[in-house]
């Protein structure tokens, strides 16, 4: 089956899934997981496609959420419709991506990682401190509920689920098309060898900047949808942990590969919500051990990051090209096969 039909089949499943398992908390979980799929797809553009390590991605998520919270809530009495906010917030996030990227993208990769990390600390702290506008630690609540041709979304989670699904479909389409576009190929060239790419006539600064801006705009979408669903934003939703969680999704699934990234984010989300609580109950019930594994989620993310990078840096579902790059070139027969794979990928 062609990948396109596989994707359509999976989407058909995703559409009927909440109708079959019509259970509020399950649909709620799927919607939250959807927000993280969106975030992972956005971070994938920056880290996976362009190879720029962004450790403060949650900051853009925060900017998207707070734009929605300030422009569509009783906070200032401004009520811009949800659908317009989707565009507006992703635009605002993209502008901040450019503002952060423009001066810093000349830096070497690891410095860039630290600058983005610093930015990721500054943004939530600023939202926390500017309490006269942002509500400080309490955040902003009772955000506007979206309406769709007169239908008011209310508090039921199902409509938000379908919005999230539509956004994911859009994001996948956008990311797939970007990947094979001139811009996408320029990102990959930079990721592989920045100096060589520059010598081939790629303007590395604007190319990297566009990766930052486009990646940030995805998190703007996620921020609006997540904020509308939760009806609340507060600074503690956007800590460093969130950025690392999204990074772990990418590393687990496979940086640079869209199906891999989606798989990674779904695995981590369900680990968080189902597997760890179940395992805790299992340990308690069967072995009478009182270990709360849900407190260990960041330990587990840390272990995932270390083990994956050491033993399978290309992720569970790798893109062939990324696998060839991330494997150190030590075994010659393998290298030939990888180069062949790379060649196939490029000429496909």
């Amino acid at each position, binding site marked *: 089956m062609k990948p396109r039909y596989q994707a359509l089949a999976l989407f058909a499943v995703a559409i009927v899934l909440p109708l079959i398992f019509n259970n509020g908390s399950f649909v709620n979980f799927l919607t939250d997981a959807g927000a993280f799929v969106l975030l992972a797809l956005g971070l994938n553009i920056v*880290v996976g496609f362009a*190879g720029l*390590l962004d*450790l403060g991605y949650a900051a853009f998520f925060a900017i998207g959420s707070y734009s929605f919270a300030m422009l569509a809530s009783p906070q200032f009495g401004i009520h811009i419709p949800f659908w317009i906010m989707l565009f507006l917030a992703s635009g605002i996030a993209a502008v901040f991506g450019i503002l952060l990227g423009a*001066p*810093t993208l000349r*830096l*070497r*990769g*690891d*410095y860039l*990682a*630290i*600058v983005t*990390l*610093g*930015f990721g*600390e*500054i943004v939530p*702290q*600023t939202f*926390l*401190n500017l309490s006269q506008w942002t509500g400080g630690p309490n955040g902003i609540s009772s955000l506007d509920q979206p309406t769709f041709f007169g239908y008011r979304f209310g508090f039921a989670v199902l409509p938000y689920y379908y919005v999230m699904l539509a956004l994911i479909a859009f994001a996948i389409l956008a990311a797939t098309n970007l990947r094979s576009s001139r811009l996408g190929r320029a990102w990959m060239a930079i990721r592989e060898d920045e*100096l060589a790419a520059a010598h081939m006539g790629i303007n590395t600064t604007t190319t990297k900047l566009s990766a930052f801006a486009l990646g940030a705009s995805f998190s703007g979408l996620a921020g609006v949808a997540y904020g509308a669903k939760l009806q609340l934003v507060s600074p503690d939703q956007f800590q*460093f942990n969130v950025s*690392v969680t999204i*990074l772990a999704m990418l*590393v687990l699934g496979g940086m640079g590969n869209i199906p891999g990234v989606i798989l990674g984010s779904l695995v981590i989300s369900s680990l968080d919500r189902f597997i760890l609580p179940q395992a805790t109950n299992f340990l308690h019930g069967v072995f009478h051990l009182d270990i709360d594994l849900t*407190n*260990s989620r*960041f*330990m587990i*993310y*840390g*272990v*995932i*990051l*270390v083990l994956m*990078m*050491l033993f399978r*840096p290309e992720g569970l579902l790798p893109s062939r090209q990324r696998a060839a*790059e*991330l494997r*150190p070139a030590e075994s010659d027969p393998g290298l030939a096969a990888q180069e062949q794979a790379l060649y196939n990928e490029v000429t496909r």
Partner: protein
Amino acid sequence: MDVILQQLINGLSLGGIYALIALGYTMVYGIIELINFAHGDIYTLGTFFSLAVLTLLGVSGELHGWPLVGTAILTIFVAMLLCGITGVLVERLAYRRLRNAPRLAPLITAIGMSFILENIMQYWRGPSPVPFPEVFPNPSFHIGTVDIAAKQIFVVLLAVVMMIVLQLFIYNTKLGKAMRATAQDRDAAQLMGVNINTMIMLTFLIGSALAGAAGFVSGVYYGSTWFFNGFAAGLKAFTAAVLGGIGNLAGAMLGGFLIGLIEALTTQFISDQWSNVVVFSVLVLVLIFRPSGLLGESLPNKV
């Protein structure tokens, strides 16, 4: 004016802690060009190790005279040793295999190690702040209208002494020379018979041991710690290393004291809430306008 002087003193002692941590960042970066993300957590481990030693010795309050000196030396020594071993283990487990991998790879494992260490500390001592005994007597010296606490003098002295010993070691011993050679050109050093694995281990040992000393000092200085302490402190110390010029030992020291001053002055004149924002903004600005730092040389692009 008095307020400024007082904050200068506070900033210097705060800066002593950052300087000790920054030395570890700068040494590791100098030798394998890796931002050792777990370094801040090794510093926090240093505080917890010191606390464990003090508990074993049954120390819970002020000490005077020789018992104070003996306890301090013993505690620092054990904390440095255990942190040094931890640092070497982290390098062996998470970084060595990736020495020839793309630069992104060890950076990601470093973040992973940082999370793992934080969680281990959380299991060990719980999620809330843990008090650290006030071992230092607290006579303040009054000079004019400025107060200087004994522990503040101790912090600055310790940082300066460690720095001098480190400089002597790096520039006046054969091992130090081998370390510098490894930092300069790993392959050439290996051809000259330097065992580069040993040198990299030694770098992690010394850098992490200095973080361990900083951990003890921080316990004495702040009177408490918690498992997540190393995240912000590590980031600030990294800022210090970059500000001074990464790879440059004297630069790390200078950067540490400067960051301490900036933090103290921000706390005094703007507010406590903004000190992190100001320090990280300094980091961003330095990286943009002078990425080689105050004392560093600019690095050419490697092909």
